[in-house]
């Protein structure tokens, strides 16, 4: 079963993303900031990581570059969930090794359609 790590500091967003993914038959693990996400990633492997950018403790960009240092996550798709669609944001994400980004407002159908570009 496809296993997805969802990292977001907002409970409601995290719940929604997770709910959407689960209802589409994915398995999810949730983390509420970059640090938690990183330790979840170290403890297990995932088929996809979806992470918010603005978070306390460790932001999404830092999480992404940390994940890319882990052997298990060298090629794992990492999507940034962000409202910031500015080019700058995308560039920073890319530099940190992000696969792509999902632009908020969060839309369940779009999320499911989009992640098909990176997972089976």
């Amino acid at each position, binding site marked *: 079963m496809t296993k997805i790590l969802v990292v977001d500091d907002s409970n409601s967003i995290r719940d929604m993303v997770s709910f959407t993914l689960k209802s589409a038959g994915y398995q999810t693990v949730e983390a509420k900031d970059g640090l938690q996400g990183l330790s979840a990633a170290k403890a297990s492997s995932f088929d996809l990581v979806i992470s918010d950018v603005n978070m306390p403790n460790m932001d999404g960009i830092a999480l992404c570059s940390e994940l890319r240092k882990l052997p298990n996550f060298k090629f794992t798709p990492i999507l940034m969930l962000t409202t910031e669609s500015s080019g700058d944001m995308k560039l920073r994400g*890319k530099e940190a090794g992000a*696969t*792509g980004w999902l*632009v908020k*407002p969060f839309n369940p159908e779009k999320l499911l359609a989009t992640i098909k570009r*990176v997972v089976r």
Partner: protein
Amino acid sequence: MSVDLSQFIPSFLEESFEGLELMESSLLNLEQGDDETINSIFRAAHSIKGGAGTFGFEDVTKFTHLVETLLDEMRDGRRDITPTDTEILLESVDCMRLLIEAARDNAEFDQEKVMQTSRRLTETLAGTLIKEEPSDIAVQVPNEGEMTYHISFIPEHSLAKTGNDPIFLFNALAELGKLTIKANTQKLPSLNDIDAQELYLSWQLTLISAVDEAEIIEIFEWVEDECELKITQENTDITEEEPKNHDNAEEPLESIEVEPVSSTQADISQSQKNNSNNEVDKAAGKSKGKAEVGSIRVGVDKVDSLINLVGELVITQSMLSELGNDFDMTKVEKLTNGLEQLLQNTKELQESVMRIRMLPISFAFSRFPRLIHDLAIKTGKEMELVIKGEQTELDKTVMEQIGDPLVHLVRNAADHGIETSEVRLANGKSAKGTISLDAYHQGGNIVIEISDDGAGINREVVFNKAVEKGLIEANVTLTDSQVYDLLFEPGFSTAAEVTDISGRGVGMDVVKRNIQSLGGRIQVDSTQGKGSCFKVHLPLTLAILDGQLVKVGTETYIIPLISIVESLQIDNKLINRVSGDMVLYRLRDDNVPILPIYQLFNLETECTEIDNALLVVVEADGQKIGLMVDDLLAQQQVVIKSLKDNYQQVTGISGATILGDGSVAMILDIPGMISMALKQAQQVQLDKNGRESSKRGELV
């Protein structure tokens, strides 16, 4: 596939209100260069914007976007943080709260205020770059029939290192139409030279589809910097081939970007129209919405202890049931121990469950720093707020209802209590006044203190005002506390002129009534020139009551322990029969009317003699009365069941409970009983006067 997310709205709302509180308190402490604080404010706004967009709360999204833009500039150091900006942001927080509340209740909001603030925000932002998010909606190209797209996709060798895999991109493309793929293997090195982590292939794709180019570009949007992508289209209608440069942000979207001000205004006038349509429906929806939203966030530790206790209860239960399987008298001691344990378990479980409803009072206190900040500006006085005992816990319902009375008391302290800096300095005080909020537990109650180091209550002014208003006679002598109680009389206001902060004269009596309806009381202390202190005593919870069980005839009644002053056996020498019906009892300096409960409720009892009877002295509304009872039984905690919900409201009774033996006992409503007794006494007096005058007629 459609996913319904409406179930997440309550948690979004809760989170947003928390976010707003955080924004507010952080803004009050915001200083230049405090990156962490400004970041956390930004994050809060950002989350609210994101969530609001998801649920379609467009007013919230639009407004918050402006706020976020301003915060972003501050965060990046592009803008200095001035007090004016902080003011605007605080105002914006208010507006966001209004907007979110309106969205929650599906109701209207104060358009004037939101419009003003959004104008101020835009003015502040003007001159600096206003970032508008490119819309997700791509520019529509009218399409007739299908088109053939030729896509040349040459990825960089390192493409896979960002987690992108071309196969998924092709799968996504295939969903758009008919796709043919041709791989170019020319660059593939010999097997020995292959690095398994690199990508050597490139592809020529042909897609026959009705979608427009933007959708194809979107599929490649994550890899556009890491590949060479060329899309050309053939179309029977449009034969021109234009190699498009897809730089997302710039030209094509410019036309649909909207100036924030005008968009907000347009929206507001739009919703104004909608709102005026049927206000009644909206008002109805409002109250309904509020009731549904209620939820409690409970700490994991509380839930854990609950589960732990239930575990223990199960163990006790299984022990007892095993004991019952073959019980004989040798096991009585074991049984007693078991029952003891059960009692302990139940008690702990009850306490644990009650703790779930308890929240730290900081929830109610958190709005005051902002209030004081605003009041200081409005009144031009210097003042600061000191908060203590924020962690003191209180029932959620009590907390919700005590908020407004507390605001009133704090406003009063700021407006009437604290003097201007000049006056303070002239009186040898520091220029800055202090208002303190404190909360602590005191024997099953919570006490909230609102104190200030201001001018104190001027006894003379209060007294004269009360005489002027006809509340008291000019020649009575009153104790200090009696004078202070006058403040809570309806229609009383000492402020020489009414300000918009306080002093409309409708406040304090409402404050007192609200506190009383929660089963609490308020007490005033004041020293002229030194300051005043208002103490609000409240029960910790509305669901459970500490009660004294009393017996009258065959009935058992419960008197709330909080209202009992003392219980005593009547000393015949101290009885004072003023007239035949009114019996007073001399209790030290007070004369307390004796009210036999059997008379009030028309009960049969053997104990009708006042001499040597048992008297429970209770107090409400500053009035003491002695309730005559047959016997005093146990003191215990009782669970309050509402009479109104199960039967109907009864005067003199505040509720019912079920006792250990399964019988139902009524809980006495002391203020209600006192007014009932007074009415009865008046009635008796009237009847008697009538009788006496007719008698007199006969005699003469």
